[in-house]
């Protein structure tokens, strides 16, 4: 009998702790996945040369000045010879777009320029060119804080992303929060859980042995709990990306990162 009441007390006490934690002002930025990575993985990311993702940044850099499509234009013709005009931009994405009446990710902007302004073929989301270009563009804003707008026209999309993040789904009936909010720093099988942020994407994942998009990671995290994954570039994942980048507010962009 005494045992149960003790457990009850502990539960109540723990519950109180959670309440206090929830009420505490949350000003500090969350930690990047980098902070939980093992030193060997961090070292790989620290040196742009040993970071294999830079092979894709090189692809993006090459594509930047390549003429393609019926308009006979290259990105460089409109955006300048190097990528520096993109400085600071990717950290604000996804953004609401008036023509589309929904959010646009950086990849959407790239394909919009390719199809409408260059009259060239759209790139597939997970192609070497698109990953390379996304990494090339995002690298221009490296070491600058992630800073998305979630008010105004973006608000409903932000809410949709937040709801996705907090909704239980799949055979394991889990939401993103159950891992990335409740248990950062705790081991789950061979992985240490992090805040699950997108500040390093596209990322070179050692498991993938190549660079991959944030939406590919979403698919993985959906599949791991036996939930139906959505398509890369889908509205669901783009809204989710906005919510995730809001969570990452103030965290430095470290794209392209290296993760295990």
């Amino acid at each position, binding site marked *: 009998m005494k045992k149960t009441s003790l457990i009850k007390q502990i539960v109540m006490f723990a519950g109180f702790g959670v309440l206090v934690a929830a009420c505490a002002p949350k000003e500090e930025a969350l930690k990047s996945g980098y902070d939980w990575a093992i030193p060997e993985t961090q070292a790989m990311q620290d040196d742009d040369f*040993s970071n*294999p993702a830079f092979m894709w940044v090189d692809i993006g850099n090459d594509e930047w000045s390549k003429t393609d499509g019926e308009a006979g234009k290259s990105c460089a013709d409109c955006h300048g010879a190097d990528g520096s005009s993109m400085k600071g931009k990717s950290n604000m994405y996804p953004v609401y777009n008036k023509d589309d009446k929904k959010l646009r990710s950086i990849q959407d902007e790239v394909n919009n320029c390719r199809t409408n302004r260059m009259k060239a073929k759209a790139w597939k989301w997970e192609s070497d060119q698109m990953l390379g270009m996304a990494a090339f563009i995002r690298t221009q804003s490296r070491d600058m804080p992630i800073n998305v707008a979630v008010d105004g026209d973006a608000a409903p999309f932000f809410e949709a992303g937040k709801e996705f993040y907090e909704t239980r789904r799949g055979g394991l009936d889990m939401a993103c929060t159950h891992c990335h909010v409740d248990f950062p720093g705790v081991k789950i099988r061979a992985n240490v859980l992090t805040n699950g942020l997108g500040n390093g994407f596209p990322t070179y994942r050692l498991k993938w042995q190549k660079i991959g998009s944030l939406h590919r990671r979403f698919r993985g995290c959906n599949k791991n709990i036996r939930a139906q994954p959505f398509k890369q570039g889908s509205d669901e994942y783009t809204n989710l990306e906005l919510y995730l980048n809001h969570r990452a507010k103030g965290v430095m962009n470290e794209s392209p990162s290296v993760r295990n």
Partner: protein
Amino acid sequence: MAKKPRVKVPKSAKKGEQIQIKTLISHKMETGTRKNKKTGKLIPRMIINTFSCSFNGKELLKATLHPSVAANPYFAFYAKATESGTFDFVWTDDAGKTVSASSKMTVA
């Protein structure tokens, strides 16, 4: 091996100085032990099996690679700067395909 290899050699060095050389090449390094998930058949081995570096035509380093090496092999090694010249790097895969790169260094 579609992408350009990445090579880092100092442009100049002092005589007798120890210099670091780094290389990185994109390659899937298919081990030969993985199965195609749909057909159940083994995916044939396809790895870079040899990497070499020579300086002014003389071999400096030769490495034999095996299937446990991860995709996109990275090498870092050291050499002593003796004279100005050219480093040549060659990667060879199981299909006999080679990719090469070279890099000049002046020694003062």
